[in-house]
């Protein structure tokens, strides 16, 4: 019984991490129809910036609780800097080209950023572990969990609910939904699509960085940490349906629980359980769980 509970709680915690990591990717794809491979390096940049800013904060003796704020701040900064840089600096010249060409462009950006990180921060690993242990741990039902895990859960929930609220309740959000459905038509109707692209990409970058920033206290911040994240994020997004917010949430939940179950009961399949889930979902729902209907072609 305890085993089951622990599996579920572990699963939910991992799912919340997956959701934060994947939601930026699905948002950018939904609006701009670009699969942003650089997402992985934005995640890494978030982690590195968090390590630097957090390390600076803590090193100067400021209140340790503020380090959480530093984590959030570093994510925001990464988004605000890298978003416009990549979108305005490169992508906007390539709109209208094949989806695959844009994919390769973001892949190139990923490669460049991976080395840029090495050049800026060096190849040694960084660490910013203090925020992780700061709030101690909590016991329930015979299990012990660090409070930090629930901070992660909170971040994930806030992100998801926040995005959903913005999309469905605000005017800007509804305009964004229009752009998601048909960017050409939206432009014709007067919606300033380029501005939405910029905002979306920036927010997406920020979300990737949030994933990295809040992961940093849990792991060793090393070069190449973004590489595996891309495939994980992609798998979650494909399961849920490219561009779907609730798809990303449900996909993350499914993958998280399955992975947790495999870790607890069948460790050999842990590494690729996510891809198995993806293949299985695609067998029954070729475009993912929540996919948009396709218009008649002829």
């Amino acid at each position, binding site marked *: 019984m305890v085993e089951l509970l622990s599996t579920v709680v572990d699963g939910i915690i991992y799912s919340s991490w997956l959701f934060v990591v994947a939601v930026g990717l699905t948002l950018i794809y939904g609006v701009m129809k670009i*699969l942003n491979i650089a997402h992985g390096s934005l995640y890494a940049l978030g982690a590195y910036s968090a390590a630097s800013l957090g390390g600076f904060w803590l090193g100067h003796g400021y209140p340790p609780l503020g380090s959480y704020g530093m984590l959030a701040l570093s994510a925001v900064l990464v988004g605000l800097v890298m978003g416009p840089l990549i979108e305005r600096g*490169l992508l906007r*010249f*390539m709109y209208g080209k094949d*989806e*695959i*060409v844009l*994919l*390769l*462009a973001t*892949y*190139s*950006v*990923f*490669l*460049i950023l*991976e*080395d*840029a990180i*090495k*050049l800026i921060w060096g*190849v040694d690993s960084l660490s910013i572990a203090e925020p992780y242990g700061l709030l101690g741990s909590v016991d329930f039902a015979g299990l012990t969990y660090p409070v930090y895990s629930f901070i992660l859960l909170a971040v994930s929930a806030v992100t998801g609910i926040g995005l959903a609220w913005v999309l469905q309740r605000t005017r800007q959000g509804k305009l964004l939904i229009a752009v998601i459905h048909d960017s050409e038509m939206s432009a014709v109707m007067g919606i300033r699509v380029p501005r939405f692209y910029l905002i979306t990409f920036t927010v997406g970058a920020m979300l990737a960085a949030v994933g990295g920033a809040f992961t940093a206290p849990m792991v060793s911040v090393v070069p190449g940490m973004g*590489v595996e994240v891309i*495939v994980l994020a*992609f*798998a979650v997004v*494909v399961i849920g349906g*490219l561009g779907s917010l609730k798809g990303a949430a449900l996909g993350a939940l499914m993958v998280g629980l399955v992975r947790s179950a495999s870790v607890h009961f069948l460790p*050999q*399949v842990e*590494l*690729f359980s996510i*891809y*198995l889930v*993806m*293949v299985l979902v*695609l*067998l029954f729902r*070729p*475009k993912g769980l929540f996919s948009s209907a396709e218009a008649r*072609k*002829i």
Partner: protein
Amino acid sequence: MKRIDPTLMALILPLAMLLAAGPFLPQWVLFLVTLSIGKGFVVLGLMLLLRTGLVSFGQGLFYCLGAYAAGGMGTAFDVSDVFLLLVSGAAAAALLAFVLGFLVAKYRDIFFAMLSMAFSMILYGLLVKTAALGSSDGFNVPVPTLFEAKLAEASTRYMVFAVACVATFFVALAVHWYQKSPLGSLSPAIKDNELRVEYMGASVRHAIHVKFVIAAALAGLGGALTGMTVGHIDPEMAYWTTSGEFVFVTILSGTGSVVAPFLGSLIFELIRSYAYEYSPNTWQMVLGTSMLIVIVFLPAGMWSVFASRRKRA
């Protein structure tokens, strides 16, 4: 007089020269060329898919499988004949592609790219966790032999090199002829307008399935050859970044000719050895920047530079 196919000339001349010069070339050149040929096979398969409008980010799956099949044949069944190893690599990959193709051939664009990537990551995960195959360390491929004869190391290197050159000739020519065949010439049509292809009576899914299997066989062949040349194989061959490198070389080479993948592969390996030695921490940056330049300024790949030059002359 019937005009000789320029591709035939482009294949025969350099390969004949290489074979003739082989015994006099330094070992590292033989190594480099053989390695480039191995990777060139993978790129040739990717080129076939690219002409059909598809990009696979998971050829590493078949590349790795081919290598492990060849290695496995050697270790488990004591087979070391160079031809058998190559064929087993290609066959294993083709078989897997045949099975996976039923699912994968239904997809296009990003889904096709990412689904293929997912499968390669599944293999990676499997291999890393399999102690019998050396986990993440992999294992060594036994020395290949030619018709039962086990040669000295330098001669073996030349032998593999020669076999690679000969294989290149036949394989590249076969792919060239395939592209001119009715099924092969469907590629640009599928890339352009699938609907029209279906409404003229051809099955797009069937065509893609076939090309997927051919590309896989080529990748498996390349993996087996690379495994033999390097002597060691590991799961990294299936990691998605390996597949990404193959995609890069394909974009670099373009789809203009069956010779392009081998040339592009050679250039890539040369640049990689120098760039990596000079500054290992900027190698990826060099790769990324070059790819961007090629995508933006040379969408048809580097081969288009040669092709247009020929037309003007």
